[in-house]
C-alpha cells in the first residue's frame, strides 16, 4: 500500500473515534450549567424573549437534533460561533492552533535530541556512573510537575538572570511587520527561539524523561539480540554494531511512547501556556470556560482530539519508515 493510501485509510479508520469524541464533548458541554439564555437575559425576562433567544440558538429543539446539526456543521468545518470573541469558532482556533502545535513540536524536538543519546549511552554503559546519572535525571523528570518547572525557569532565567522573556511566544513564520521590535525575518526567528526556549524545556522535560527510560531499556534489549552477537563475532567495530544493527530496531518502542506522549504533551500545553501566558489552544480553552463561551469550549476540545489523532498517524507512518519489516497496513 502506498503511503498516501495508508494515511487515507488511517483517517477513515479514525472516523468512529472522532464521532465518539464529538459525542462526548457535546454531551459534556450540554450539561454545563448556564446557557446563552441565562447569559443574555436577566432571570425575570418575559417568556417570549426567552423563547426567542432559545430559538435563535436552536435550544428549543430536542437534544439529538441539535447534536445532528452540530455534527453536520463539524463535518463542514463549522464549529459554531464564539459569543465572547464575536467570530466563528473555527477562525479563532485556526489563529491559536499553530502556536500550540509549534510549542509541542519544539518540546518533542528538545526531548528527543536529549533523551535518545542519553538512553543509548546509558544502555551502553549499563550500571556505570553515566547510567546512574541518566536514570536519576529521568526519575526526576517523570516526577516533576511541568508547570512548576516553568515557574522555576521563569524565576531563575527571567527574573534572576534576565536571560529570557517570561511571557509570550513568537511564531517563526510570523510577519515581521506584525511583531513589535522586529524588522527582518532574522529578527523574528531570533525572537522566536528566544521566547520558545523556556516553555519548550518546561513542556519537554517529562517527555525527555519518559523517552530516556524507554530508549535505555529498548537499547539494552536490542544489544542482547542474536544478530548483535553475530555481528560481534564477525568482528564489526562496536560503534558500527551500535549504529547499524542495534539502534534502528530499538527505536520502535520509542516511537510508540512518543505517540502516547502526545496526549500528555498537548494536555501539558494547557498548563505551560498558562504559566508563560502564551496565547495558544490551551489558554483559549481555559479562557473560553471562564467566559462561558461554550461553543468555543466544544470546538477546542474537538480540535485537541483531532490534533492528537493526526499526531498518532504521523508516528505510525514513521514507524513503518524506521522498521522496513512493517508495511503500511499490509498483511505481512
Amino acid at each position: 500500500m502506498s503511503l498516501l493510501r495508508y494515511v487515507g485509510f488511517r483517517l477513515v479508520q479514525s472516523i468512529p473515534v472522532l464521532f465518539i469524541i464529538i459525542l462526548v464533548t457535546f454531551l459534556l458541554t450540554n450539561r454545563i450549567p448556564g446557557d446563552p439564555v441565562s447569559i443574555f437575559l436577566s432571570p425575570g425576562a418575559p417568556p417570549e424573549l426567552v423563547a426567542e433567544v432559545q430559538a435563535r440558538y436552536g435550544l428549543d429543539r430536542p437534544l439529538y437534533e441539535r447534536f445532528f446539526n452540530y455534527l453536520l456543521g463539524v463535518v463542514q468545518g463549522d464549529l459554531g460561533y464564539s459569543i465572547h470573541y464575536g467570530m466563528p469558532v473555527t477562525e479563532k482556533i485556526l489563529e491559536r492552533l499553530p502556536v500550540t502545535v509549534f510549542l509541542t513540536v519544539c518540546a518533542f524536538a528538545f526531548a528527543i535530541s536529549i533523551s535518545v543519546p542519553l538512553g543509548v549511552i546509558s544502555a551502553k554503559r549499563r550500571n556505570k556512573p553515566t547510567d546512574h546519572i541518566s536514570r536519576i535525571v529521568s526519575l526526576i523528570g517523570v516526577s516533576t510537575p511541568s508547570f512548576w518547572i516553568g515557574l522555576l525557569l521563569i524565576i531563575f532565567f527571567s527574573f534572576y538572570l534576565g536571560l529570557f522573556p517570561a511571557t509570550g511566544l513568537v511564531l517563526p513564520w510570523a510577519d515581521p511587520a506584525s511583531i513589535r521590535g522586529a524588522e527582518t525575518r532574522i529578527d523574528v526567528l531570533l525572537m522566536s527561539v528566544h521566547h520558545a526556549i523556556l516553555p519548550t524545556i518546561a513542556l519537554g522535560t517529562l517527555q525527555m524523561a519518559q523517552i530516556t527510560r524507554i530508549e535505555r531499556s529498548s537499547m539494552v534489549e536490542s544489544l542482547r539480540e542474536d544478530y548483535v552477537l553475530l555481528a560481534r563475532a564477525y568482528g564489526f567495530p562496536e560503534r558500527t554494531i551500535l549504529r547499524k544493527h542495534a539502534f534502528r530496531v530499538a527505536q520502535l518502542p520509542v516511537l510508540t511512547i512518543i505517540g502516547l506522549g502526545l496526549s500528555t504533551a498537548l494536555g501539558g500545553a494547557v498548563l505551560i501556556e498558562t504559566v508563560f501566558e502564551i496565547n495558544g489552544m490551551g489558554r483559549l480553552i481555559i479562557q473560553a470556560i471562564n467566559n462561558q463561551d461554550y461553543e468555543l469550549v466544544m470546538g477546542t476540545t474537538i480540535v485537541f482530539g483531532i490534533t492528537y489523532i493526526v499526531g498518532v498517524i504521523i508516528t505510525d507512518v514513521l514507524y513503518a519508515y524506521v522498521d522496513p519489516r512493517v508495511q503500511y497496513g499490509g498483511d505481512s
Partner: protein
Amino acid sequence: MGSRTVDDAIDQLGDAESRPATVEEKNGGLLYILKEIHKDTSATIGLYIILFVTAVAVFTSVDYYLLDYAFAERFLYHPERDPTGGQRLLPPVGMESIYGPGVIEHPLGTDHRGRDILTRMIYGTRIAITAGFAATTIGLVGGTIIGAVSGYYGGRVDDVLQRFTEALYAIPFLVLIIAFMTAFGRDVTFAMVGVGIVSIPVFNRLIRSRVVSVREEEYIAAAKVAGAKDHQIILYHIIPNSFSPVLVQATLQIGVSILIIAGLSFLGFGAQPPTPSWGQMLAESRDFMLPAPMYSVWPGIAILITVIAFNLFGDGLQDALDPRTEN
C-alpha cells in the same frame, strides 16, 4: 505455550530446595514482596516516604474533619484563616527580602495573606494523597471491569469497549478532565473522578492483554467444565492472575494522579481556596514570583518528593514481582 505440564510439576517436586520461586509464591506472599523490596534501597526509601506522607495525610484529615483544625491551631497555625496582624510574604528563615527578614516562627516563610507556608504545605498533603488514591482506585476498578469483560468475551463486545476507551484516550486527558469538570463541578471530588476516568484506559489495556493470554489456559477450561459461571471465572481466576502487573501500575498511577491533580488545582480546577492544596498554592504564588520567589518553590518540592517516592516504590515492586526484569 507457557502452560506447565504434569512432567514439569513432577520435576519441580523432585528438588523443592533448589527450585526458583514459583509464580504462586511470587504473587501470593505479601511477606515475600516486602522482603524483596527491603533488599532494594531505593524502593525502601520510596516505601518509607509513602508511609510517612500517608500518615501525615491521615493525621491532617482527622484534624480537618473531626477537630476543625484544633491541632493545627494549637501547635502550628490555622491553615486556612488569615492571621490577624500577620506579616505577608515573609521569606524563609535565614533569607531576607523587601518584606523583611525570615523568622524562625515561619521557617518556610508566609504567603500573600500572612499564612504559614509550612502549615499549608503539611495540610495540602491531605488533598494530594486522598485524590491520588481515590482517582487510582476509580481507574483500577473501572479499567479492570472493562478490560476483563472485553478480553474474556472478545468479538463485538471487545470491539465496542475498546473503541470507546480508545476515543477516551484521544482527547488529551487534561483537556478531557477540564471539560468534564466544567460540566459537573470544579471541586476536588470531580477532579478525582475525572482523573479516575482518564486512567481507565491504562488499566483496561493491562488487564485485557492478561485476560487474552490467561483465557486459553487449561485451568480456565477446567473451571468451565466444573460449571463455573463467566463472572466467577473472571472474578476468581482471571483477575487474581493479573494481580502483580496491576499492583505495579497502580503504584505508578498514584504518582501520575497526584501530578495531574496538582496541575488541575493550578488551573483552578480542584480544591477551592482557602483549602490548602499544593497545586493551588503554586497558582497563588504566581503573582508574587518576583518579590517572593521561594513561595513558588516549596509546594513543588512537596509534589516532587511524593511523586518520586511512588515511582521508586513502583519500580522496586516491579523488580520484586517479575523475576525476569533486571534493571
